[in-house]
């Protein structure tokens, strides 16, 4: 491949600028910032276009913004080049997205743009198709630049600089993939394995823990499910027991109802009997009875009050009564007066006749007594002389004392008569004054007049009493009739009227009624109790209460057994329900945990996949590296060794490239007879090695692909000393016989050395 002409309509600082190149050595010599690097970058831009390589969409290349001409509408240009003896002109507009490219075959004078396919970026692959290399690859192989600046003189820095430069040198085929593998390994490490404490290990540990937990929860769930099944069976058993209990209960209830009904019937019969017995008083109203008793009381009181009225009214209230009393008193006083006068007469007479009367009586007694005593003495004297003596003594004593008493009494009596006479006379006087007082009180002069007055008053009184009696009698008759009628309600045989009898009869009826009601009430309470009891049985639903021929004892026994079993099952169910409830709370999180487990599993799988991907990528890269070592290394190292030997004037004859542990480049040092790592060599030697490697890559590509790639160097020899530069230019001159060399430099020494060495070159003015 040979670049013949580059024309910029606009690229960076270059506007409407053309550069021409020749075959062999081309030198671009200009001071810094004169546009050498822009020219070389523009060359690649025109060859490959403005889009980023390696991506499927249209993305601007890294340099795109940097080289847009300021204030110009043109961004692009033309490049004429030669490949396999065919001349082409590639015309490009670089502005995106309206970029365009046209490839003309200069030999045939025709546009051959459409002969090249477009890639995903809508970019036609002209150079790729002609040379087989992408821009990046072409740069890696053909383009040499310093790549970095010296930053210090320390050993570490030197080493890092070396590595970087080696990479630049070997990017064409031997990209150092060791750091790539390191990055992948780091990622693998970060993910970790199942035993580590890294991300994957933690997730796995949590997963394992959770898996156990879920496993246990599932077991508990199964136990719970089993318990639920048992519960369902238990519920069924309980239902059946309840049904049986209900049946037995019904039987028992039938019997109980039967008995209750029998008792009620008995009570009803008792009630009927009671009704019959107390039929007469069933309708008795006690209040009415008491009213009747009150009437009877009233009747009695009427009678009693009337009687009392006869006595008390005349004395206390009624004047008639006083006058009657006073009149009676006057009569009495009159009589008393007369009695007193009579008595006074008698006293006078007695006083005169008293002693004679006494003596006559005494003589008759003494005579009779004496005769009787003589007789008795004679009788007893004849028969019982002692007795007669004794009797004689006794009689003598009696006679003595009695006659003495007679005489004493006679004396006393005479005194008494005198005193009595005085009393009577006094009484007569008092009597006379009272009578006078009474008569004055009634304003009458005599008892006869008082009597007349009293009679008049009595007549008036009797008239009033008559009216009262009539009223009383009427009332009493009414009471009588009413009570009689009332009594006749309870008995046909009403006794003859007698208040006491009737009262007793009323009391009797009341008592009878009370007894009846009491017994009825008792029966009612008992019946009500039975009714209540019965109603509890009736509340169980419609039952045929016919008494069967069942054995009630057996029913009862069965019922007890069934109830015991039912209670036992219910307790069992309660316990089971408790267990289920507890377990249900526990296993309620099963679903949630399963979700978490599923999430952890997925996360774990994702990490596994990522780790596997990293591992596979690492393996792939290692395999690539091994292949490179096995295939490319042996092919490349002879060229590199040859060029290095020439560059070092025969000092280093062998270059060894190991790519299995990164890029390890070693050289055979004749002084020591050992293969020494280039890290131990001077920077100058390293520069020579890098240069040798690049040339070997170009040579390798020429041998493998038959394409003579140009060597493009941008101030590459800036740090070469003169001797190395001479060697390098000599080698380049040899290379230039087959390859175009474009050497850009800001120094004159390259041109001077070439002039000294007689190397032919084409100078590109800038």
């Amino acid at each position, binding site marked *: 491949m040979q670049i013949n002409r580059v024309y910029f309509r606009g690229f960076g600082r270059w506007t409407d600028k053309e550069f021409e190149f020749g075959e062999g050595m081309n030198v671009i010599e200009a001071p810094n910032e004169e546009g050498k690097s822009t020219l070389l970058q523009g060359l690649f831009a025109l060859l490959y276009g403005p889009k980023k*390589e*390696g*991506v*499927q*969409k249209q*993305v601007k290349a890294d340099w795109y913004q940097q080289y847009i001409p300021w204030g110009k509408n043109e961004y692009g240009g033309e490049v004429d080049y030669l490949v396999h003896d065919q001349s082409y002109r590639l015309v490009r507009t670089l502005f995106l997205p309206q970029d365009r490219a046209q490839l003309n075959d200069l030999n045939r004078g025709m546009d051959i743009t459409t002969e090249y396919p477009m*890639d*995903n*970026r809508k970019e036609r692959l002209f150079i790729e198709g002609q040379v*087989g*290399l992408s821009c*990046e*690859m072409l740069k890696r192989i053909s383009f040499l630049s310093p*790549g970095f600046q010296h930053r210090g003189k320390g050993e570490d820095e030197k080493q890092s600089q070396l590595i*970087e430069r080696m990479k*630049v040198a070997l*990017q*064409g*085929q031997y*990209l150092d993939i060791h750091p*790539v593998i390191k*990055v*992948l390994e780091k990622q693998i490490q970060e993910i970790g394995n199942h035993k580590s404490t890294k991300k994957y290990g933690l997730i796995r540990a949590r997963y394992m823990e959770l898996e156990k937990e879920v496993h246990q929860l599932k077991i508990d*769930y199964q136990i*719970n*499910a*089993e318990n*639920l*099944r048992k519960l*369902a*069976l238990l*519920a*069924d058993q309980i239902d059946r027991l309840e049904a049986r209990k209900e049946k037995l209960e019904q039987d028992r209830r039938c019997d109980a109802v039967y008995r209750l009904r029998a008792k009620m019937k008995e009570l009803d019969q008792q009630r009927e009997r009671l009704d019959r017995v107390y039929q007469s008083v069933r309708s008795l109203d006690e209040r009415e009875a008491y009213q009747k008793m009150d009437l009877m009381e009233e009747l009695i009181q009427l009678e009693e009050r009337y009687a009392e009225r006869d006595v008390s009214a005349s004395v206390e209230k009624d004047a008639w009564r006083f006058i009657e009393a006073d009149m009676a008193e006057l009569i009495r006083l009159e009589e008393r007066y007369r009695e007193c006068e009579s008595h006074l007469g008698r006293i006078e007479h007695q006083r005169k006749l008293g002693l004679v009367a006494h003596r006559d009586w005494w003589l008759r007694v003494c005579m009779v007594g004496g005769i009787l005593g003589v007789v008795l003495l004679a009788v007893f004297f004849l028969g019982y002389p002692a007795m007669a003596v004794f009797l004689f003594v006794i009689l003598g004593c009696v006679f003595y004392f009695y006659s003495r008493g007679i005489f004493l009494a006679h004396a006393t009596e005479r005194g008494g008569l005198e005193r009595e006479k005085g009393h009577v006379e006094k009484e007569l006087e008092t009597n006379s004054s009272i009578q006078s007082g009474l008569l004055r009180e009634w304003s009458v002069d005599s008892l006869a007049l008082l009597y007349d007055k009293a009679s008049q008053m009595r007549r008036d009184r009797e008239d009033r009493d008559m009216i009262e009696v009539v009223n009383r009698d009427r009332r009493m008759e009414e009471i009588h009739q009413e009570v009689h009628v009332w009594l006749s309600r309870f008995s046909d045989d009403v006794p003859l009227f007698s208040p006491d009898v009737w009262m007793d009869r009323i009391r009797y009826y009341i008592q009878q009624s009370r007894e009846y009601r009491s017994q009825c009430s008792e029966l009612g309470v008992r019946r009500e109790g039975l009714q209540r009891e019965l109603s509890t049985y009736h509340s169980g639903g419609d039952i045929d209460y016919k008494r069967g021929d069942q054995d009630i004892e057996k029913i009862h026994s069965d019922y007890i057994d069934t109830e015991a079993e039912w209670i036992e099952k219910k307790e069992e169910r309660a316990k089971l329900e408790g267990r*289920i409830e507890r377990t*249900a709370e526990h*296993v*309620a999180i*099963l*679903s*949630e945990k*399963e*979700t978490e487990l*599923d*999430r952890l599993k997925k996360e774990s799988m994702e990490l596994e*996949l*990522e780790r*596997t*991907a*990293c*591992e*596979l*990528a*690492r393996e*792939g*890269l290692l*395999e*690539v*590296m091994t*292949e*490179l070592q096995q295939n490319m290394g042996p092919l490349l190292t002879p060229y590199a060794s040859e060029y290095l030997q020439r560059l070092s004037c025969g000092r280093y004859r062998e270059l060894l490239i190991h790519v299995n542990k990164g890029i390890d480049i070693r050289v055979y040092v004749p002084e020591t007879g050992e293969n020494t790592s280039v890290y131990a060599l001077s920077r100058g030697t390293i520069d020579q090695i890098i240069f040798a490697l690049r040339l070997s890559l170009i040579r390798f590509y020429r041998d493998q692909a038959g394409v003579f790639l140009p060597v493009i160097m941008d101030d590459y020899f800036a740090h070469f000393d003169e001797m190395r530069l001479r060697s390098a230019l000599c080698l380049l001159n040899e290379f230039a016989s087959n390859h175009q060399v474009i050497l850009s430099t800001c120094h004159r020494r390259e041109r001077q050395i070439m002039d000294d060495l007689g190397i032919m070159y084409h100078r590109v003015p800038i």
Partner: protein
Amino acid sequence: MKPVTWIHTADLHLDQPIKEWYGSKEKGLERREDYRQTFMRIISIAKKKNADFLFIAGDFLEHGFVQASTVHFVKEQFNLIPDIRIMISPGNHDPYRMDSFYFPRESWPANVHIFAGEWEELYFEEYNLTICGKGFSDYTEKIWKEPSLTRPEGRNIMLVHGTFFFQQSHEGRCVYFPILEKEVSRYPFDYIALGHMHTASVSTLNNARQTRICYPGSPEALTWKETGARCVIYGRLDDQGVYLEPEQVHTRRYERIESVISHCESREDILARVIEDIDRYEARHCFQIVLKGRYSPQLDLNLELFWLNQQIAQRGLFYFILVNHAKPDFDLSFYREHAGIEGMFVRKMEEKMRVFPERKTQYELALFKGLEVIYAQSKGSSCK
């Protein structure tokens, strides 16, 4: 003849662990509650539509996970619609087993009928309707079993959980009660209520009855494949035939958003693209945001995902996961022709993919991973 109406649903998977959930525990619990809400909505729709039947074609209560409290809740809900006959055909996720909550059937409300492992026929004279149903009695059922219809002349509905095939070729691999078109076409069913497939579909069999065969799909999304509105089927069978109408019941939707970030130069560009995409939806839904396309190798997207997650979280979405399916923008065709180490690496990894197709994903990821690192390293070198 009196028309018959129904609500057909399946695959609610109550209490199933939420899949692919990376959210907080609280949000997870809230999400679990969503499934109950959806079920309540199904009940209320059945009530509102005054449906005669509620068909639940399996995978209703997730076996091994469903809690007693959930079962209690379900029964309470069923008690709210005592006039609606509820038919449940247990599926492979809730087989009718001794250790399932369906057992014993008597423990369920009187209006609920649970089909066991064998075909059962229920006849409803007022509609001249036979419902022929069958449930799973274990986790798998490989063999098709023929139903028996004693009243073929009447209206007939089949309720079962299984996999419907139009073609026989797939049958052998199916372990979830394969139902072949040619088998069921022979029966005079008016409607076949199926469950198992989480994607809704309705087909018509080419038989005398023009049997409608329907998967209602999951009423609430369970995975990111079940995106968009989720429905139950309201059905009506009268003299005119079968009329079907979907009714939306979901509480939240799962939405998969594919954000193509190919032209994004920075993480801010990517965020703007994602936000533009998610702003088209209500924030109360759940989102799987998938980054697709090619991103610049200069962008370390794996690192930026953390920042992106933080920024998207500020949009107040109920739940989202950010998945990176975008690949670094390497032109493999370019590298494939590349003479350098990158080319060798690309060729090698592609060769591995061909040799080990089962590990293609791993090798592909490894390829991009390797190129990314190489790119970063070479870029680092060139910068220097």
